[in-house]
């Protein structure tokens, strides 16, 4: 494997001040995180106090392209439009309101400490770093934690109908990996409500003429001029025509790449294409193998399965996870008495119980199923049981009503009402999919691919290693280290879009006020367009026998089996060989029906799957390089005697930032992580 990655480790130059020169020409060799000087809690304030500003008249002359209008993109496009920039926003759905963010269920974190239970900016920061298994940058995470409270205020002002208590104040719930209640929510539809808020702010800017929206458009290439990202080539998905768009800066807010596994909780269209094009144009890809497998999803039911459905982590607040104590126990859940049930999370992790972080909960489920204790027909499932919660809530309701001798039935009926109010839509969703009623029988759940911590490498300003090209939201690698805590992705997407990029973008655009818009007849645009057209023609010209879907499924199977919840060197090496072979087969035997200049979803999918295949290879290379276990990255060779992830801080306390160096070749750059405030320890949730 060594010839595949020649290391050119240059490390991080820290504490450079803001006017530090740009890396225009040498960005390919160097990673400068541009972390501001000062103590951790002063860095962001310092930055904001000293970053360059663009005056309102000049903002009107500057054009910004925002690709993606999920939480990160919609919040960024709206905020930049409000500031006066000329914004063009793109999404592949028919409306920005349908971005994948809409599906987020459980909630959004913020260090408000409304519950007076000991929360603070520092504690949210600490939990996030620890939850990420000490593989995230302190300065970024601290900033995230600082702005978290502003997000809630902003969303409330927009009319986001968060859950409230009877006193009229905002309600909170707890989420995995923490011991405080800091999660704000709107039933099981938090992402929907937050996205609608950002979408409405965006539509307002569209109405005001500050943002021009391009729906049903897919970005297929970055245009680089004189070492800077200056535009994109996008395909109008309705007409199939290629378009050129100029921007003084380009923001990629294009979401995560969990669909490389084919089956995931992501929306069907979620893809890596935009990020991958940027990567091939010089943007380093950070920690590609860091994938989050979510513990509570509805298990696979057959070969026809097209996606997996999440059951929000908030359910672990009230649901107890168990399997039978006896192997291969085929009795119905209700026939298994209490003393024959193994509540394995409560047993193994008494301090956090069912609320351990996701990576820990997922591996524990896999361990039980692999050992033969799984339930359901496939035996690849564990129970998530609300029986105890229904009775607990029922008793509270009874006592509120002042009744002394309520029957068990009355208690259960009232308890179900409470559970319904909290999780009704999730229970309905479960019943629609499985045909089983979770108020009566425990849910069956199994881990599924859910989120990707890896993504485009960005510096403190969210700029990638290509000047002028930024990445926000799930598309970047930034804040979650090797494992993301629940309710923190929504927080990060909105932090990036509402409160970070409006400052950091200005800091570099201040140098661009004399830069005139470049005509899209410029040879670089011409060249990029030709490249895209050529690739599309090549794909259409293959006229092979196998569908795009069949290739995607095969890629997913390789990834899930060999680069999924548990990985080892042998499997990863095999996977790399298999993916390379799959790539050859794809490019010689894929069949794409229809024409180029029309609405052609098979062609859209082919473009995406071609990129997923290349990404899959890099993920395996990254997983093979990282000879340790941390967070969601579990290398079987590196574990403690009781099966917990075993980090190697001496050798791997770095961000692996991969530079594309030609087909199946990458160079590894390392950004060393320096922990100045937190002392990394073995994560302990016992």
């Amino acid at each position: 494997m060594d010839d595949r990655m020649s290391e050119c480790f240059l490390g991080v130059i820290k504490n450079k001040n803001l006017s530090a020169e740009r890396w225009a020409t040498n960005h390919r060799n160097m990673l400068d995180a541009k972390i501001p000087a000062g103590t951790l809690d002063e860095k962001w304030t310092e930055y904001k106090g000293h970053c360059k500003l663009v005056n309102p008249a000049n903002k009107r002359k500057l054009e910004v392209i925002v690709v993606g209008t999920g939480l990160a993109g919609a919040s960024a496009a709206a905020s930049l439009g409000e500031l006066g920039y000329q914004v063009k926003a793109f999404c592949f759905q028919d409306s920005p309101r349908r971005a994948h963010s809409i599906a987020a269920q459980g909630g959004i974190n913020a260090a408000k400490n409304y519950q007076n239970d000991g929360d603070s900016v520092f504690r949210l920061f600490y939990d996030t770093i620890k939850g990420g298994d000490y593989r995230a940058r302190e300065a970024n995470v601290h900033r995230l934690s600082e702005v978290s409270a502003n997000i809630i205020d902003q969303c409330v002002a927009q009319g986001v109908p968060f859950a409230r208590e009877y006193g009229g104040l905002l309600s909170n719930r707890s989420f995995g990996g923490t011991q405080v209640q800091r999660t704000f929510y709107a039933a099981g539809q938090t992402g929907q409500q937050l996205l609608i808020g950002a979408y409405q702010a965006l539509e307002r800017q569209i109405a005001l003429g500050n943002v021009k929206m391009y729906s049903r458009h897919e970005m297929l290439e970055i245009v680089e001029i004189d070492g800077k990202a200056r535009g994109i080539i996008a395909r109008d998905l309705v007409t199939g025509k290629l378009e050129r768009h100029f921007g003084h800066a380009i923001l990629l807010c294009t979401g995560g790449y969990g669909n490389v596994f084919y089956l995931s909780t992501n929306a069907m269209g979620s893809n890596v294409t935009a990020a991958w094009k940027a990567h091939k144009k010089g943007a380093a890809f950070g920690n590609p193998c860091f994938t989050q497998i979510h513990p509570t999803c509805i298990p696979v039911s057959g070969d026809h399965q097209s996606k997996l459905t999440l059951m929000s982590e908030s359910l672990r607040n009230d649901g107890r996870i168990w399997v039978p104590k006896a192997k291969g126990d085929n009795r119905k859940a209700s026939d298994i008495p209490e003393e024959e049930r193994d509540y394995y999370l409560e047993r193994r992790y008494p301090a956090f119980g069912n609320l351990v972080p996701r990576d820990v909960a997922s591996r524990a489920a896999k361990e039980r199923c692999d050992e033969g204790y799984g339930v359901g027909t496939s035996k690849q499932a564990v129970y998530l049981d609300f029986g105890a919660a229904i009775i607990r809530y029922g008793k509270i309701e009874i006592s509120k009503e002042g009744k002394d001798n309520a029957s068990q039935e009355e208690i259960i009926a009232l308890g179900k009402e409470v559970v319904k109010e909290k999780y009704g839509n999730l229970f309905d969703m479960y019943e629609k999919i499985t045909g089983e009623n979770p108020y009566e029988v425990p849910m069956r759940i199994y881990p599924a691919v859910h989120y990707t911590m890896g993504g485009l490498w960005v510096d403190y300003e969210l700029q990638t290693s290509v000047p002028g090209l930024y990445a926000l939201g799930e598309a970047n690698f930034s804040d979650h280290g090797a494992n993301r805590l629940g309710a923190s992705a929504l927080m990060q997407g909105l932090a990036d879009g509402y409160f970070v990029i409006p400052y950091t973008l200005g800091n570099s655009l201040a140098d661009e006020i004399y830069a005139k818009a470049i005509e899209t007849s410029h040879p670089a645009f011409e060249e990029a367009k030709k490249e895209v057209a050529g690739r599309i023609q090549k794909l259409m010209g293959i006229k092979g026998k196998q569908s795009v879907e069949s290739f995607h499924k095969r890629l997913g199977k390789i990834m899930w089996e060999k680069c999924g919840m548990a990985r080892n060197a042998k499997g990863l090496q095999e996977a790399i060989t298999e993916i390379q072979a799959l790539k050859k087969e794809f490019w010689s035997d894929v069949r794409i029906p229809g024409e180029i200049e029309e609405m052609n979803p098979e062609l859209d999918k082919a473009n995406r799957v071609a990129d997923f295949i290349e990404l899959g290879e890099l993920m395996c290379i990254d997983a093979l390089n990282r000879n340790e276990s941390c967070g969601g990255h579990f290398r079987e060779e590196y574990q403690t005697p009781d099966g917990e992830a075993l980090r190697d801080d001496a050798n791997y306390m770095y961000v692996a930032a991969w530079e594309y160096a030609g087909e199946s070749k990458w160079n590894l750059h390392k950004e060393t992580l320096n922990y100045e405030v937190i002392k990394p320890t073995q994560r302990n949730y016992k």
Partner: protein
Amino acid sequence: MEHYNMNLNLKVWRQKNCKSKGEFKLYRVENISSEMSFLEMFDVLNEQLIHDGEDPITFDHDCREGICGACSMYINGKPHGPWQANTTCQLHMRAFNDGDTVVVEPWRADAFPVIKDLMVDRSAFDRIIQAGGYISVNTGNAVDGNAIPIPKDDADASFAAAMCIGCGACVAACKNSSAMLFLSAKVSHLALLPQGAPERKSRVMNMVAQMDKEGFGSCTNTGACEATCPKEISITNIARLNKEYLGAGFTSDK
């Protein structure tokens, strides 16, 4: 849950683009599992069509869990099919029996032109939101979230209206192709909150004007929208909208 397999006859609307005339085509799918979703059944059909060298059927979909509002099939005469409070993507094949014939069409409304096959253009909904479906607050302008206590019942009612997924089934179900349920859901979501109060009058006037401009029909209170809405948006929202509209009409200074 009993699982079973079935063979089905499908009668699907095919239309190359917005300019061409469409027609129904017949297809047969076999060995469909009752555990599949309706869209997974379409995946099977499309794989079959690709294999046979035919053009697969185009339809909108993304989240496949009932929240993005993209999916939009008119199944056996009902938007989103036979189940109550349900989207096309959440419909599962156990709703059907072996030998059934299933008719699938796009949303039909002048304001939703067909793009291809079962995919329509719903951008009119975005333009209605642009006309006033928001609270004008720039980033950074907000006060503390708990500075504005909101009675739980109001917050819950606002949330119930805000659950609309913008799918357009209400329009497809209505014999007049009215967008009143969609519009009223947005007006209610914002009118029920104190933050929405300052723009209450102009919002409703402008949004209704935009709706008329888009070519949606008028509301004659038949209730087909409420009956078909996957998010059970209540028709009482239309009553609230009418009240808001009348109130705004009498007192608006515009």
